């Protein structure tokens, strides 16, 4: 070894300069690599940011829950928001609130996306270029309010205050009163609300049938048999969280009793999927079906009232055989449903969705009301319970413009009768058919002011945008509609300090009143919305304290604020007497919807439907909702047109084929989705997508079916008949891959359902 090693050592001294440099280089690369590696596996630098001056009651890492009211739809659920270090972290249902009872839906949860949305408007803006260009310059609040105050003030002095119009979304509670007072003092009677989802037909029908102008409490919880005509009570109808809880009780809350539900609708909704029986009657004839069932019920001798003969005569024309031919529901089914509906136990019939959105909407709901009357469900546990008059804000419903009111507004704008248009929390450019031409009419208005947290299609036309606080940063109050059978009111309080240079909408109105001057600042003397709400609650409290409330007001206010809700369970409900039937009998009319477009030119029925995520489109800018798959089809992102496999086969349409869906009012291009739970001949398109200017998450995604709905009014309610349009479809030859979480809806012989059978 040594003999060999010796020369080796000798030779080692002869390492060439080239080799030496190579080794040094390799060593350097290695060390550098090691340091880079160390740097790479190192955790990101995080900071410990101390408070400069800590608030007194501050405990880092300890959450506080504040109660307030959800504003993501109109149900008025109570929510609890988890706050840590002054930041909102999570929203849950308020356990003591009678509407939500500790539960909350996806939209309510996504309220954090509203608060932290990167597209929020952060300062007052003034249009800096052509209208609709989206080119805005930042201005100060002072500048904005002074300009608006002087322009509106001048109109008031000139006696032209009537040319100022205020258009809001569904506004309740004392904010509604503030709006009304502001406009009243200004001298304008044009304060209106527009909400696409407003149940105008149900209210109108209840006025006709029962003589009450309210949404009663539909007691699904205690019903044994629930017959729903198009009402997706688990997804979108009136108060979905409350109804979902009630549904759970109907099914499993009672030992040994399982309630049955039947859903009548052309396209299976979540409620349809949860029902025992799903009946796809011919679209637009659901009210007729209700009358057929009523006929069978009376004829079978199951109605024993003294006015039995009158009913018999009124319903004569609606024998099951006649109705069967019209509705495409078998005679046996009609008779069976009548038997089940009048069987011992409580039954309940409800109407909504497309049933309450035809040209016959009110007549259909009246027919469903008649069913409830005949089965003796009125005022009964498990039936229709009338609410007492709400504590305040009883008039809010009457401000709903409906389609008729909006057409009047468009006409006034086109005629140049509108000088100033104030818009808040509503998006008519999106949520009205394109034929209404709301956007074009807006061009004739010299001054448009939007009070909004976000840019949308309507604010895009505004000259001034006054950024509002979100509901999590605002004071307010609310009376849930429909109520819960006893008096309830909730307080909405800011749960976090406002994030940007925004103001609560109530505070903007109060500030504007001061700039306008005259008697406005004297009558609207409150410094803030908080002061106004508190004063109104004090008055309310004093009215009731005569009836035996024993705390002082401050204690009552603190307790209500902490609980987020005030209520009187067990207090007398509304009028419990059963209304007389004579007007109800007289109001029975032939409830068949008239569709726009002839059957030969437009062979398919367009069925736009509200989704549990976007409703009328307002949820589309929330990323959590965008990534939530549709519960029925599992499709996520974008729009699609559902059609029955039979229809698709006839036309040779495959999933993903882009179709041109054309109605008499316009056309949209949307990919096809083959969906078995839809009546052949019906094309269903979800509402909510297809925004052009609603922030980064909503814009340029999918299509808006409302835009191609024909402008038809339901005469009795004055509202848009959005489910009464026919369409034709054409393949464009283009294709698009629909993104969905389901693979295929068939088992393909995989024996998922047990032993091999023929279902594959």
């Amino acid at each position, binding site marked *: 070894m040594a003999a*060999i*090693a010796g*020369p*080796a050592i000798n*030779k*080692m001294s002869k*390492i060439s300069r080239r*080799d030496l440099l*190579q*080794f040094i280089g*390799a*060593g*350097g*690369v*290695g*060390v*550098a*690599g*090691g*340091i*880079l*590696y*160390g*740097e790479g596996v*190192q*955790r990101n*630098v*995080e*900071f*410990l*940011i*101390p*408070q*400069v*001056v*800590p608030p007194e009651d501050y*405990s*880092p*890492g*300890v959450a506080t829950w504040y109660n307030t009211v959800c504003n993501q739809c109109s149900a008025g659920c109570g929510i609890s928001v988890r706050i840590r270090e002054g930041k909102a972290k999570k929203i849950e249902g308020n356990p003591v609130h009678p509407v939500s009872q500790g539960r909350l839906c996806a939209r309510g949860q996504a309220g954090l996306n509203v608060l932290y949305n990167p597209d929020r408007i952060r300062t007052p803006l003034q249009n800096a270029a052509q209208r609709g260009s989206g080119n805005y310059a930042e201005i100060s609040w002072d500048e904005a309010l002074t300009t608006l105050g002087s322009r509106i003030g001048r109109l008031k002095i000139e006696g032209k205050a009537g040319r100022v119009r205020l258009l809001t979304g569904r506004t309740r509670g004392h904010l509604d009163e503030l709006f009304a007072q502001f406009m009243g003092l200004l001298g304008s009677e044009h304060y209106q609300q527009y909400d696409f989802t407003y149940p105008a037909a149900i209210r109108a029908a209840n006025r006709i049938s029962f003589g009450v102008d309210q949404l009663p409490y539909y007691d699904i919880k205690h019903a044994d048999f629930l017959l729903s005509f198009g009402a997706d009570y688990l997804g979108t109808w009136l108060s979905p969280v409350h109804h979902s809880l009630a549904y759970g009780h109907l099914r499993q809350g009672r030992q040994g009793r399982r309630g049955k539900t039947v859903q009548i609708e052309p396209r299976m909704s979540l409620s349809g999927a949860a029902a025992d029986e799903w009946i796809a009657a011919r679209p637009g004839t659901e009210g007729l079906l209700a009358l057929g069932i009523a006929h069978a019920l009376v004829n079978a001798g199951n109605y024993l009232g003294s006015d039995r003969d009158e009913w018999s005569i009124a319903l004569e024309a609606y024998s099951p055989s006649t109705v069967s031919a019209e509705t495409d529901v078998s005679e046996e089914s009609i008779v069976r449903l009548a038997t089940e509906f009048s069987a011992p136990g409580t039954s309940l019939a409800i109407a909504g969705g497309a049933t309450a959105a035809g040209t016959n909407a009110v007549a259909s709901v009246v027919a469903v009301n008649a069913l409830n009357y005949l089965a003796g469900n009125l005022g009964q546990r498990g039936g229709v319970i009338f609410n007492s008059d709400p504590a305040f804000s009883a008039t809010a419903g009457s401000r709903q413009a409906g389609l008729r009111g909006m057409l009047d507004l468009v006409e006034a704008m086109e005629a140049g009768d509108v000088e100033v248009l104030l818009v808040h929390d509503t998006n008519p450019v999106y949520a009205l058919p394109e034929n209404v031409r709301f956007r074009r009419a807006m061009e004739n208005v010299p001054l448009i002011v939007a009070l909004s947290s976000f840019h949308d299609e309507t604010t895009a036309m505004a000259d001034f945008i006054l950024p509002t606080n979100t509901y999590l940063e605002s004071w307010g109050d609310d009376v849930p509609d429909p109520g819960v059978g006893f008096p309830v009111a909730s307080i909405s309080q800011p749960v976090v300090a406002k994030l940007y240079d925004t103001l609560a909408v109530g505070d903007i109105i109060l500030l504007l009143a001061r700039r306008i001057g005259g008697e406005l600042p004297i009558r609207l003397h409150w410094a803030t919305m908080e002061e106004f709400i508190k004063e109104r609650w004090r008055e309310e409290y004093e009215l009731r304290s005569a009836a035996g409330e024993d705390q002082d007001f401050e204690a009552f206010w603190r307790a209500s604020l902490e609980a987020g809700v005030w209520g009187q369970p067990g207090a007398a409900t509304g009028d419990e007497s059963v209304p007389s039937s004579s007007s109800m009998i007289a109001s029975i009319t032939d409830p068949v919807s008239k569709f726009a477009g002839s059957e030969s030119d437009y062979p398919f029925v367009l069925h736009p439907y509200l989704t549990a995520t976007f409703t009328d489109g307002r949820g589309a800018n929330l990323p959590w909702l965008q990534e939530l798959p549709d519960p029925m089809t599992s499709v996520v992102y974008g729009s699609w047109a559902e059609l029955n496999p039979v229809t698709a086969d006839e036309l040779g349409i495959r999933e993903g084929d882009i179709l041109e869906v054309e109605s008499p009012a316009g056309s949209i291009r949307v990919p096809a989705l083959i969906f078995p739970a839809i009546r052949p001949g019906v094309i269903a398109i979800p509402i909510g997508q297809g925004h052009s200017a609603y922030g980064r998450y909503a814009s340029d995604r999918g299509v808006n079916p409302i835009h191609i709905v024909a402008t038809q009014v339901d005469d009795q309610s004055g509202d848009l008949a959005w489910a009464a349009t026919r369409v034709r479809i054409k393949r464009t030859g283009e294709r698009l891959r629909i993104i969905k979480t389901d693979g295929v809806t068939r088992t393909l012989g995989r024996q998922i359902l047990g032993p091999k059978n023929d279902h594959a």
Partner: protein
Amino acid sequence: MSISVLDALRPAKKPALLGLVVVVGLFVGAWVHGKYFSDRSPIQPIEFSHRIHATDNEIPCQHCHIYADRTPVAGVPSVSKCMGCHNSVPSVRESPEILKLATYWENREPIPWIKVYDVPDYVHFTHKRHIKAGLACQECHGPVETMDRITRVASMRMPWCVDCHTERNVEHGRDCWTCHK
């Protein structure tokens, strides 16, 4: 067998040897990084010394980290807290580091301290329970009172946690849901 460098330098073996040098270099580099450049002992915006505060001036830990015994986080003192004392310590008022502090205070800005001890967000660690169990701060954080610049002495990784819980026979100390909820 040959240990000759000559053999190693033969063309076929030279790349292998170069590779070996790179690998050794990697280890050396990683060690150097860990020793001198890592987040175990980052340079802070103000050269704050725990030794001066805790040893020389005998200030107890929880005088500044006031939330340790009642919340999940120990809490870093507010700028107002620092100034509260330093306003009445004229001897060091003109030292450059205290001047930095004064500047933050005048601008009403928080001091962006760099975090040394951190657990991932999916770990529900709470100081409160550990203090209530009678642990001294030093058992996890080391002899902080001797450090001029704070240096992390424990990995804060799960095996380290579980070892201690096992050793002390902590009730539910090895239950997943104790820390991961």
